[in-house]
C-alpha cells in the first residue's frame, strides 16, 4: 500500500508467459496499455521485462515457428506490499485482462520469490506468537 512502511524484505513477482508465435508485439502493447498501469497502482513495480529467446522472429521465414516467452519481474514492498496488492486484485477488470490476454499466450506461470537472505526474516515475522 502506498506510503505504508514495508514489512519484511522485498517480495518479487515472477510472471512467465509462453507467447503464441507472432503475437509478441501485440502482447507487449496490450500489457503496457491495459495491465501495467493498474498493476503499478496496486503496488507492483516492474523491474524487468525480458524476452527469450531474444530473436526478431519476424525476420525468419523458416518453419517451425519459434516459441518465445516473456519474463516479467516485479517487486512489492514486503508483506504490506503483498497484501496491499492482494486487497485490490480481485476485480472484474483484472479478471477480464487475464481472460483477454489469454489469446496472446499458450501458457503462463506466476510465482512469488524472495532473496535467500530474506527467508529467515519472513519466517521470524510469521512466528511472533509461536
Amino acid at each position: 500500500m502506498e506510503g505504508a512502511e514495508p514489512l519484511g524484505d522485498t517480495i518479487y513477482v515472477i510472471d512467465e508467459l509462453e507467447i503464441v508465435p507472432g503475437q509478441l508485439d501485440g502482447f507487449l502493447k496490450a500489457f503496457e496499455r491495459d495491465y501495467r498501469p493498474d498493476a503499478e497502482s496496486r503496488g507492483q513495480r516492474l523491474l524487468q521485462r525480458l524476452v527469450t529467446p531474444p530473436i526478431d522472429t519476424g525476420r525468419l521465414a523458416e518453419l517451425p515457428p519459434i516459441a518465445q516467452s516473456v519474463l516479467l519481474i516485479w517487486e512489492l514492498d514486503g508483506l504490506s506490499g503483498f497484501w496491499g496488492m492482494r486487497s485490490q486484485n480481485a476485480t472484474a477488470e483484472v479478471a477480464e485482462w487475464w481472460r483477454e490476454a489469454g489469446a496472446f499466450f499458450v501458457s503462463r506461470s506466476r510465482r512469488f520469490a524472495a532473496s535467500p537472505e530474506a527467508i529467515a526474516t519472513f519466517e521470524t515475522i510469521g512466528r511472533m506468537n509461536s
Partner: protein
Amino acid sequence: MNRRCVAQVVLADGADPKDAEEVAQALVSASEELGAVRASHASVHYDFAVGGGDLTWDLFLESEATVGVPASSLGAALLGVMNGDRLGELLPSSLGSLANRVERVEFAQPELIASGTNAPGLVGVKRTLWMRVNPAAPPDLVARFEAETPILADGIPAIRNWRWSRIPQRDFGEEGEGRTVGSNTESGAALRWTHLWEQEFETVDGLQIDYMSSPVHWGFIDRYFDPEMPDCIIDPWLAHLACPETAPVLSWDLDR
C-alpha cells in the same frame, strides 16, 4: 452420521450487539434441551470478520438414537437439521422469539479431511474460513489443494488446533445462484460453500500477525485464492470469520 455441525448465524438488519449476544445464548440453550447435543458453542464474530454471518455456532451431536423431544420450535428445527430433513437451512420461522433478530442460519456438517490437536482444552480464538471451490476446477488441482492446506498448520505454530473439511453438497439441496444463495426464501436456502478450514489460536495476534505473515500462507497456499494466479480455484467470496471462545471447540473429543 457426521456428528459435528458448524453454522454461520446471520442476524437480521437492525440487530445490535446485545441482540447478537442474546442470540448466542439462546442457540446454546436451545441445543442443550436436546439430549443428543453433547456440546454447543456460539460466539459473536470480531469486527474484522468479513464475507459471512455474525456468529459462529458449533455443535457436537450424539447419535440419533439418543435424541430427546425438543420443547421449543428452535429445538425442533435443530432436530430436523440433525436428522437431515432440511439440512443446510434453519428458517426464521423455526426460531421462535429469535425470529425477528435472525435472518438465517447456514449449517454445514463437515466431512473431515485432516485435523490436528496440539493444545487440547484451549479456550482462545476460533477462526473459520468458509470457501467455495470453483465447480470447473480440475479435480487434480482440487486434490492438491486439499492435500496442501494442512501445510499451513505445520508452518504456522500459532495454529494450535485445526480441522480441514469438505462440506458435502448433499447437505444443501439444489444450489442457487450468486449471492442469493443461502437467503431466506420460500424455496428454501442452499449453501454455496464446499470447504471449511477451522483453526484455534491462543490470541487474535496468532491469526492476524502469524497467519497473515507466514510465507507458507502468502508465498505458497495463497496461489489457490489469488485470482491472478493460474492455480486459483477458490471463489473470491470467502467467509473469513473469527470469534472469541468461551469453551474448547476444536479439541472436543470426537472419538469418545
